[in-house]
């Protein structure tokens, strides 16, 4: 059924269809309409879930961690400083291998305060051990939430579904709301391998030692083995997500680009790369430049962690230039995605030039003309732009 609703409502509807059992949330702009919608679903009994209105984001993730460890499907959502306030808990949830799903409408981080969109919040949390999926429109938001629950419980790793604050969270677009019965068959109930159970007691997340330890069952891993497992399983999750996406496409007729989404890239000499809804804005620029005879395409990175390096290298090797646009950066260095892409391309024998543009921080408007100017310059003189990130739209 097609409906017209906000991106936050799309996310909330996805959570309802996924039959989350425990939800915890603390309000922060621009996440609030999502959690308000969930309150409506729970109070109207459209969704049978325990909904805990906690006193902080740190506690929101604590509720999810504990509820997930006890064997229930858990969900929360936050943005910006709220995400950073739960950062310790993000590491914990990943280390404890819990299939929690969290939506993050992306927002810039204070100081100074901003409520507007950029992606510094989730990009700065790229190393916590969570899977990060970025949605580019409302359909992708609702679909990604449902797929995220399936992925999380398949690989026992928590998943963030990220989408641009305001640009997607607060805008209204038509999207298809999947049938509950189809979602139920796509997303089976969460059956944990281990859970808090008085009939089978265990001490979860106990302290470990630097080395392995003998156990009645053999040799128990030390911290480094447990963390290495998390990394290897994250890497394997790339293929798992491709399979899940294929199943989703079979059931719902949508999908096919789970890791990156390419537009006009096949014959392109130049490829713009970015994360989030900007990749759709860039399609207009691509169309303009194609009309002028420039062979250019755009690639949206849908899954940022684990990083789909092989797919990206395959897509960019042999191109003349990849132009990376970012609404976040690793301060004192460069854009995080830019660094990841250059690193992935290092072993390619057909390395393109790679450029980095920083833009849109704190919700600064991104004009099509600015994108056109930047891309035109990069395509005109790919070899002279250099390695220093360039800022778009600075007025002072």
């Amino acid at each position, binding site marked *: 059924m097609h409906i017209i609703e906000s991106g936050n409502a799309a996310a909330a509807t996805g959570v309802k269809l996924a039959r989350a*059992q*425990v939800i*915890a949330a603390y309000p922060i702009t621009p996440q609030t309409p999502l959690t308000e919608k969930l309150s409506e679903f729970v109070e109207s009994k459209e969704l049978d*879930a*325990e909904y*805990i*209105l*906690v*006193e*902080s984001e*740190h*506690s*929101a*993730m*604590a*509720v*999810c*961690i*504990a*509820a*997930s*460890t*006890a*064997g*229930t499907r*858990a969900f929360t959502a936050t943005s910006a400083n709220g995400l950073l306030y739960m950062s*310790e*808990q993000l590491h*914990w949830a990943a280390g404890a291998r819990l299939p929690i799903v969290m939506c993050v409408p992306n927002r810039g981080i204070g100081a100074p305060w901003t409520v507007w969109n950029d992606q510094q919040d989730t990009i700065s949390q790229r190393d916590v051990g969570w899977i990060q999926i970025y949605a580019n429109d409302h359909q992708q938001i609702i679909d990604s939430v449902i797929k995220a629950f399936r992925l999380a419980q398949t690989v026992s790793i928590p998943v963030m579904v990220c989408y641009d604050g305001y640009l997607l969270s607060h805008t209204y677009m038509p999207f298809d709301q999947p049938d509950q019965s189809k979602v139920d068959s796509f997303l089976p109930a969460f059956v944990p391998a281990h859970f*808090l*159970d*008085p009939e*089978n*007691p*265990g*001490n*979860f*997340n*106990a*302290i*470990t*030692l630097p080395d392995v*330890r003998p*156990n009645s*069952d053999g040799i*128990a891993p030390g911290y480094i083995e447990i963390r290495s497992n998390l990394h290897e399983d994250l890497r394997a999750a790339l293929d798992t997500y491709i399979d899940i996406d294929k199943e989703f496409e079979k059931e719902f007729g949508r999908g096919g680009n789970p890791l990156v989404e390419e537009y006009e890239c096949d014959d392109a000499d130049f490829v713009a790369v970015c994360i989030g809804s900007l990749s759709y804005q860039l399609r207009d620029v691509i169309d303009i430049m194609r009309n002028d005879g420039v062979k250019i395409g755009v690639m949206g990175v849908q899954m940022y962690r684990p990083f789909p390096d092989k797919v990206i290298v395959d897509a960019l090797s042999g191109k003349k230039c990849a132009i990376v646009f970012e609404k976040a950066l690793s301060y004192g260095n460069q854009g995080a995605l830019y660094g990841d892409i250059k690193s992935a391309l290092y072993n390619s024998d057909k390395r393109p030039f790679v450029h980095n543009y920083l833009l849109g921080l704190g919700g600064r408007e991104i004009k099509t003309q600015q994108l056109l100017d930047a891309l035109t310059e990069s395509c005109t003189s790919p070899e002279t732009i250099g390695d220093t990130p360039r800022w778009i739209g600075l007025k002072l």
Partner: protein
Amino acid sequence: MENKTTILNLTEDEFVHSGTRACTGCGLSIVYRMGVKALGKDSILVVPPSCLTMLQGIYPVASAKLPSINVTFASTGAAATGVRAAMKALKKDNVNVVAWAGDGGTGDIGIQALSGACERGEDLIYICYDNEAYMNTGVQRSGTTPKGVLTTTTPIVGKLQEKKDIPAIIAAHGIDYVATASAAYPLDLYDKVKKATTLSGTKYIHVHTPCPPGWSFDTRYTIKIGKLAIKTGLFDLYEIENGAFQLTGPSKRLVGKERKPVTDYFNTQGRFKSLDEEMVKTVQDQVDAKWANY
């Protein structure tokens, strides 16, 4: 309290294996053993970093026969909330959800999550074992360290501030049951925990817990010193049920009787050796004024 448990009718069920990682003479090991006895098998523990983390064992060894989740320092009250929410979602209504934290994990870094849980009236038991400093990290001062006490972060002059009254702060939330207990009176503790398992809503039990290395006393004196804290009137055993305060057990029996001077307690422990006469008198006056109202 009616139907007091005695050593004759105390359950023989044990939920702690012998030989834990607790220090010799550890007050917590008494509190833990008696507490989980009272809780019984159908219980889930929620534990932040503290001495209890060590006592419960290093992976893959576990010292207790109860399920336990280790959580981050500040999150105990919220994590216990999450366990309860899951029990509700899974229709497992017969499980005691029990948060078990030290004084710093409760009254300092953990107070926000605990306050939130109390305000929401979460159905859980919160046990705080108060050994009056950050013992697991090596005896640093906490909000509940008494005034004048020497710790590794108040090494010469002693702590300058008063002990934070955590049970009073929790009681101000209007939860149904707040109690204090002592490691030196394990049967009183047992009965209070047992009572908490029969009540709904948030139950908070604050347990005075002597610590030989942290308080500088010989390991054989844990019970003696715990009892002295009560008999001098420094730490009082009470219950606040539905808002009604009453002293219990050994503290109740002290009303109208002569209490031991606080110096009897201070002299047993190295941590009080920087107290001068004036400070001792101030504390004695405070205790006398408090007891004048009982």
